[in-house]
């Protein structure tokens, strides 16, 4: 594929130009935004150091609610990480053409979300300086971690997911990196030559020969097939952190499918929330169109219905089981001290997404953007409700208690959003945010081409 730029007026050339053109040049707005994000991350770092120095008591968690906002954030970010692999791997295997413009951003989101989620198990440790006790490393005391503990399963599930997602993302990037390298050929100045070298190394000598393409397509397909079960397994394992405990409100067989659906639900919502400002800022409106939002709206609706069903099924089982402890836990969840979060969760996750039944709303990007923000809020509260209300109201009424997050927890939560956005914004300016290769394939196959809104679809 020597000379990708080729004839400048073909649609292929336009794709390269549009997508690569969005890179590197950062305006004042972008720099200010990055500065603000760095400031928030810095403040969260201060809060964490403060917590390490003075103890977990600086956070609001207490007896009996020993897990609070930190684990809520952990589950929330792992959930966000799910849409990436779903869109990339599962939709790839299903040959869904509409994924091509959002898969790169969604995969990047996955990786940054896992990077964010992975911090919280550390942040919530009472003695974070001994975090390596959780890893099965050889030591002279012959001590191993406890493989019966769901937290160890988490350790493996998350690290596996991160590795596979990273490799999958990177292998998808290789042809695009080569396109950029070719575009940069003969760049001037120290910075230009550095960029050329860097993208050259990262594209691993890609030359676009037929053999390379054949191997590449095979490898990508297999990686998609390997990544697919992980979409189901990772959040199932995270849900077992709760389902394996005997705590009423947690101990439930529905948790794995319920969490997986919730993860995809929140992940799709986050893709919508991020892609709307992102396509506008990078001038990629022609690439992510109503057609794509329509499809994402459908996925959002489907997963919302599954999540809503799970909420109802949980209540039905609590009542039908005849277990007074379980029933009291669920009654209190809806009507007790945490009624507010419960109502937010129900409204945002079950009622508001029903609007997606209307095609007009699904194709109205502003409306879908607002809905997706509600879903993000609702899914955060869902995890909060599950974790906090179950722990606060357990078997022993004498040990019931309440939990209120402290400034340390809120700062670190804000910092996690800033950390995630920081990486995402860095990505948007350094790597092609839309897969150049796959968009071109879509054009060639006649599935879709830039600017096409598929009104009649």
């Amino acid at each position, binding site marked *: 594929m020597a000379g990708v730029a080729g004839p400048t007026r073909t649609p292929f050339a336009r794709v390269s130009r549009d997508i690569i053109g969005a890179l590197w040049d950062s305006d004042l707005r972008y720099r200010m935004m990055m500065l603000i994000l760095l400031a928030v991350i810095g403040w969260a770092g201060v809060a964490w150091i403060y917590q390490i120095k*003075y*103890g*977990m*008591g600086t956070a*609001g*968690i*207490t*007896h*009996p*609610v*020993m*897990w609070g906002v930190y684990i809520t954030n952990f589950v929330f970010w792992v959930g966000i990480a799910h849409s990436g692999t779903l869109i990339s791997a599962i939709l790839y295997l299903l040959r869904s053409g509409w994924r091509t413009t959002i898969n790169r951003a969604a995969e990047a989101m996955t990786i940054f979300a896992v990077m964010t989620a992975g911090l919280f*198990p550390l942040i*919530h*440790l*009472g*003695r*974070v300086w*001994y*975090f390596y*006790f*959780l890893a099965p490393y050889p030591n002279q005391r012959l*001590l*191993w*971690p*406890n493989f*019966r*503990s*769901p*937290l*160890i399963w988490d*350790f493996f599930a998350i690290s596996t997911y991160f590795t596979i997602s990273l490799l999958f993302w990177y292998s998808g990037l290789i042809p695009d990196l080569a396109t950029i390298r070719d575009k940069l050929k003969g760049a001037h100045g120290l910075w230009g030559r550095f960029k050329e070298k860097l993208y050259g190394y990262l594209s691993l000598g890609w030359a676009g020969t037929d053999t390379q393409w054949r191997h590449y397509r095979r490898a990508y397909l297999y990686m998609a097939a390997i990544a697919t079960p992980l979409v189901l397994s990772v959040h199932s394992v995270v849900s077992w*952190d709760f389902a*394996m*405990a*005997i*705590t009423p409100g947690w101990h439930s067989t529905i948790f794995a499918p319920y969490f997986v659906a919730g993860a995809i639900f929140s992940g799709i919502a986050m893709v919508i929330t991020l892609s709307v400002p992102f396509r506008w800022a990078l001038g990629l409106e022609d690439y992510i169109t109503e057609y794509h939002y329509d499809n994402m709206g459908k996925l959002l609706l489907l997963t919302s219905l599954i999540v809503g069903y799970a909420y109802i099924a949980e209540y039905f089982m609590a009542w039908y089981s005849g277990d*007074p*402890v379980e*029933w*009291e836990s669920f*009654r*209190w969840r809806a009507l*007790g001290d945490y009624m507010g979060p419960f109502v937010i969760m129900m409204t945002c996750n079950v009622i508001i997404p029903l609007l997606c039944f209307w095609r007009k709303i699904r194709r109205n990007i502003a409306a879908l953007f607002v809905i997706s923000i509600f879903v993000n809020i609702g899914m955060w509260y869902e995890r909060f409700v599950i974790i906090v209300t179950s*722990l606060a*109201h*357990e*078997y*022993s*009424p*004498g*040990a*019931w*208690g*309440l939990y209120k997050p402290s400034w340390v927890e809120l700062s670190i939560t804000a910092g996690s959003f800033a950390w995630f956005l920081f990486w995402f914004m860095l990505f948007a300016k350094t790597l092609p945010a839309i897969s150049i290769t796959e968009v071109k394939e879509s054009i060639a196959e006649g599935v879709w081409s830039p600017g096409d809104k598929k009104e009649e679809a």
Partner: protein
Amino acid sequence: MHPAVAERLGVSTGDLVAVSSPHGQLEAPAFVYHGVRPDTVAIPIGQGHEHFGRWARGRGVNPLALLPAAADEASGATAWLTTQVALAVTGERVTLVSTQGSHDDLGREIAEVVSVGAAAEAEEQARQAIADEPGALVEAAEDADPKSPYRWGMAIDLSSCIGCSACVTACYAENNIPVVGAELCAQGREMAWLRVESYYEHLSEGEHGNGHVDAQAAEDESAVPHVVHLPAMCQHCGNAPCEPVCPVYATYHNPEGLNIQVYNRCVGTRYCSNNCPYKARRFEWFDYDFPFPLNLQLNPDVTVREKGVMEKCTFCVQRIMKARNDANAEGRDVSDGEVTTACAQTCPAEAIAFGNLRDPNSRVSRLARAGRAYHMLGELNTRPAVTYLKAVSRGSEEG
């Protein structure tokens, strides 16, 4: 004060109430409580000191200020019970700290009560069973290494417990438990390994689904529920929910059936506490100070824990170790009564018995086979080493 009185005055827990008698006046925060007669207010004695220096200043009130100087004619003693007082609302509020979430056990097999008749019948059957099989062991005795001569256990008679909390104090002193103060207790950060919970005897009837005592309508003012005191600590379960969830084996089952917490190994995920149905585990939220001279009373046999680790009742493992070492040195097993926990040693009513469940003749084994014996939340199949003996109801028909 009783909820009916509180309702008449329009006060709730924490409202400052002025109490006056012909002899004096004081102000104290109201604590609304079913366990007191509706025509009575109760004020604990022993607080309100004026001459004990800075630590005692501003703590509580001295109800002696309300009493007449002369002795009560009928009893010849100070008029503790016969002084009449008037109550007035002051409109101010203070934060009252309570370490108990709810006083209603919702019929959950926590604070069990039996009638006298049922208790007598059960005890008769149990005596018969012991006579038939004198060497039989209780089920909890199985949960230790088969080669171990010991399975440490405890039996607590709720009928004997008077709720004085001497056991709690003994536990604090023995195990170097930090005293954290009212502010942290209000956040739920009390560090007590052993707590005395109080539950109303009757409230569980027909009141499922309502966890809050203050919502209980005091329909019948004369109905004063009896209170059952329940010393609750780590149950040293044979099938402990805390053990499998720890990712680093910081909590595990030792060969003598104890549920052991290894402070050095604990990283502080706090999962064990979340999975403990008894909520017996405490977490070191901070590094707590023992300022001079309190450091001098620390027990040298017990670790002072650092921030970020989980801790809980150990059955005074340091005493067990010492007794076992002494016995081993003499080539014999630890005999009954040779080792006891700080709480059992201190209990003035001898409500707590500690010993070896593998010795069928030990006091704890005999009590564990009593007719009133039950396990707290036994339906969870945690196989606790602590056996409770149901309180015998002072009511008429409670079964």
